[in-house]
């Protein structure tokens, strides 16, 4: 890409610009990490202590074990007393995981089964069923908030995992089915036809021939479903009432909107809650990017 006399300067400028954007993306995470390793007193100084010395794990220790800090002056023992909800983070994360993993599993199993039928099997009403499932996703969330509450209440599922799982399935199925049926169609059909001629049923063909080829698509679909369920807030807020079912976003919103919260503890909560989607985003970067692109561009 050498172009004229400015070619030596240009990569440097481009690198600088890349670093600038990366800094904008990473700095908020970095400040959260720093805050989580600091004492409350260091954060409420003006200006705050930018590098806590020495870094402390007392915030994390409190969240995990309820152990009070050895250095009360540094940690502001008073705000710790008004921040006791952070002790509920682990149960809330457990709830989030149970809900998100169930949604993910159901999407992979039922979503793949239905998507394969839509992609390869001819049956009555295929087109209208497909169109119905896709258009169902066009409804904005606020518009259906009250009816969802009414349905869940009538099913006597308020404040349960099952309510959240059902609602998130209704949200995630359309995307999963669209995404996977497009994916299945791009696989070569000859192998499947050979399997069918050899006497495999449709189900066996899907399980033994299609699924192994479509593994990257299934991984991406699973990750999308997990993230949608793990990140959702509005319906988790409406449909749960206690820590029996409250998910992490609901708990963190409650902690964060408490005016007397300890920011160091809140930061430690945020860091812990970020680990699962952060790891997914880093580990499955390629799958997710290709999946996102395929979902709009194909």
């Amino acid at each position: 890409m050498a172009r004229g006399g400015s070619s030596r300067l240009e990569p440097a400028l481009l690198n600088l610009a890349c670093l600038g954007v990366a800094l904008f993306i990473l700095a908020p995470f970095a400040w959260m990490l720093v805050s989580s390793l600091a004492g409350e007193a260091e954060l409420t100084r003006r200006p705050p202590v930018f590098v806590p010395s020495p870094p402390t794990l007392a915030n994390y220790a409190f969240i995990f074990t309820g152990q009070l800090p050895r250095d009360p002056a540094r940690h502001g023992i008073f705000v710790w007393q008004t921040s006791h909800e952070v002790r509920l983070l682990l149960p809330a994360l457990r709830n989030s995981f149970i809900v998100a993993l169930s949604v993910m599993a159901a999407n992979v199993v039922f979503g793949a089964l239905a998507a394969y039928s839509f992609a390869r099997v001819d049956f009555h009403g295929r087109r209208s069923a497909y169109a119905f499932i896709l258009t169902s996703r066009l409804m904005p969330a606020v518009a259906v908030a009250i009816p969802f509450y009414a349905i869940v209440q009538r099913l006597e599922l308020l404040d349960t995992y099952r309510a959240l799982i059902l609602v998130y399935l209704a949200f995630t199925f359309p995307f999963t089915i669209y995404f996977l049926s497009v994916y299945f169609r791009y696989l070569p059909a000859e192998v499947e036809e050979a399997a069918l001629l050899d006497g495999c049923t449709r189900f066996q063909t899907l399980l033994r021939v299609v699924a192994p080829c479509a593994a990257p698509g299934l991984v991406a679909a699973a990750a999308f479903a997990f993230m949608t369920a793990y990140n959702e807030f509005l319906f988790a807020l409406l449909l749960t009432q206690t820590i029996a079912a409250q998910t992490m976003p609901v708990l963190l919103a409650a902690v964060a909107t408490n005016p007397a919260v300890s920011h160091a503890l809140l930061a430690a909560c945020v860091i812990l809650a970020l680990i699962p989607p952060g790891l997914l985003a880093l580990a499955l970067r390629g799958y997710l990017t290709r999946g996102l692109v395929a979902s709009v561009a194909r």
Partner: protein
Amino acid sequence: MTRRALAATAPTARPGSRAGERCYPYATVLPVMLVVALFTVYPLIYCVHLSLHENVLTRPLDHDFVGLQNFREVITGYYFWRSLCSTALFASMAVLAVTLYGLGTALLLNQAVLGSALLKVVVLLPWAIPAVISGIIWRWIFDGDYGVLNGLLLVTGVVRRYVPWMSHTVTARLCMVVAHVWKQGPLAAVFLLAALQVIPPELHDAAHIDGAGRWDGFRFVTLPYLKATLALVLIYETIVAIATFDLVYVMTGGGPADATAIIGWYAYTEIFRFLNLGHGAALAIILGVALLGLVLVYLRALGSEET
């Protein structure tokens, strides 16, 4: 997109030889259909029913049919117009900023430099995390009493004393836009990058040989290729911006002085603060129809891009 693809696959389907095979497609599609239908058909009917009746939870015995009165009351209400203005302001700023930031990031990601590889690793992170958490992070950064932004500006001498960013209408809106851009930008960047990557490199070389500069190359080679994707990103981001709720909930609670009470938040407060389900449902329908219109435009743009 779906019609063409469905038609293309028809020949591979074989008539089922056994009864089980004949039932197979229905058995696999049914569970999904049931879940989706339960949370689509019934909610729609219920929402329309609510909007046509008086339904205030503080007056549980009055459920008269009131026709379009809820819609009239909502549309003529002072707060509706205020929230519309806030929504329009927030959406236009957010969409513009997200698109420009996404475009810039995509152009950087498309370069063959070391920094670009680094950026590629981290770019999806803000997209992957819950909107609630991004709101919490940015609220803490912009905090007027202890925020790190104030700390940095004080240390570098830009400000003499801490500025309460979240307490002024203008700056509070800007703070929301920054948080929104940070969270939504990566998706726009990924979409635009995909469009950039299909531009044949020969075109740039040809333009270069013809004596086109950097800007001309962008203007006459890159931009025409990006037009369709840019349109998609603009519409998609408009829908996302209008439907923003989580960010308002944790960052501002609609304040200060209702400056950030955009329409999703307004519908939420009608329902859960004032307990007026009729108004809430009417608002939800108005919002739903508006968003549906945008979605249809989006799908049309998507269709025209493919042909």
